[in-house]
């Protein structure tokens, strides 16, 4: 089954697509306009399309963050990636944790990269309690000096 058939089952509004590119593995990355991922997924859930989000990952590009949602199409077991570019100084987007089981993925992105998912309350799970040393997966994050205590 080709990706065009997936589009038929998991429709994405052409107006919200910024760009598309193919990975070497054959998977397609579809970059959407800011805050359009929730709307797209809401539409899929409402129409009972069969999919799930297999994983979520973030890349720190120094001047921006890129957020990737790895979507699996259930019937064909094929995958593609929805992406969103976030402003570096105010990386905010909407949560989809109430629509599909991404609550921990988003929590991890919040703690490691400082990305704010509006509506997701899981923000203190992965790092030690009272962590106040910033976001450890960001480029440029300086690890604590020897002898520093985490309070």
């Amino acid at each position, binding site marked *: 089954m080709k990706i065009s058939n997936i589009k038929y089952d998991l429709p994405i509004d052409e107006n919200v697509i910024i760009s598309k590119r193919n990975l070497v593995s054959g998977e397609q990355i579809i970059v959407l306009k800011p805050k359009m991922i929730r709307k797209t997924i809401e539409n899929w859930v409402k129409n009972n399309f*069969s999919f*799930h989000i*297999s994983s979520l990952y973030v890349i720190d590009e120094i001047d921006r963050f890129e957020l990737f949602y790895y979507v699996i199409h259930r019937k064909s*077991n094929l995958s593609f990636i929805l992406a969103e570019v976030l402003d570096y100084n105010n990386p905010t987007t909407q949560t989809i944790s109430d629509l599909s089981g991404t609550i921990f993925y988003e929590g991890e992105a919040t703690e490691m990269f400082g990305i704010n998912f509006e509506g997701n309350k899981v923000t203190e799970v992965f790092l030690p309690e009272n962590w106040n040393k910033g976001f450890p997966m960001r480029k440029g994050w300086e690890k604590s000096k020897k002898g520093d205590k985490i309070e």
Partner: protein
Amino acid sequence: MVTWSRVKSPWLIHMNTGSCNGCDIEILTALAPKLDAERYGVKLVGSPRHADIMICTGPVTDKMKIAVVKTYEQIPNPKFVVVVGSCGSSGGIYKNSYITLDGVDNVIPVDLYIPGCPPKPEAVFFGIAMLLEKLSSGKLPDLKGEIL
């Protein structure tokens, strides 16, 4: 009578089909005192011959394939398979690996998927509750691989 007893005491057999152990811990948390799935009669059993529902976690490794099929065949009918985690649903982070089979549904038929990496214990609990609700309607549910 049989349906009633099945709904009141669904016994589970848990099978790690190659998972990283994350999902397994969440299943146990769903059975532990905070959520306490045991109050609905849900119980983990040691033998597939005693079980009604098979819970699988993991993408199914090459070596586990035979074990999964044999375990599935030993469960008496009617039986249900619930997959917990993204790995078991589609391969997850191990998708397209040379050693995994990209999901439990490539080996045995699956009734219910609970995706997430790992899914919260609440989601596992909700999945089991949904299965019981369908069972309690009197006829056997045709879930056709429903996704939560």
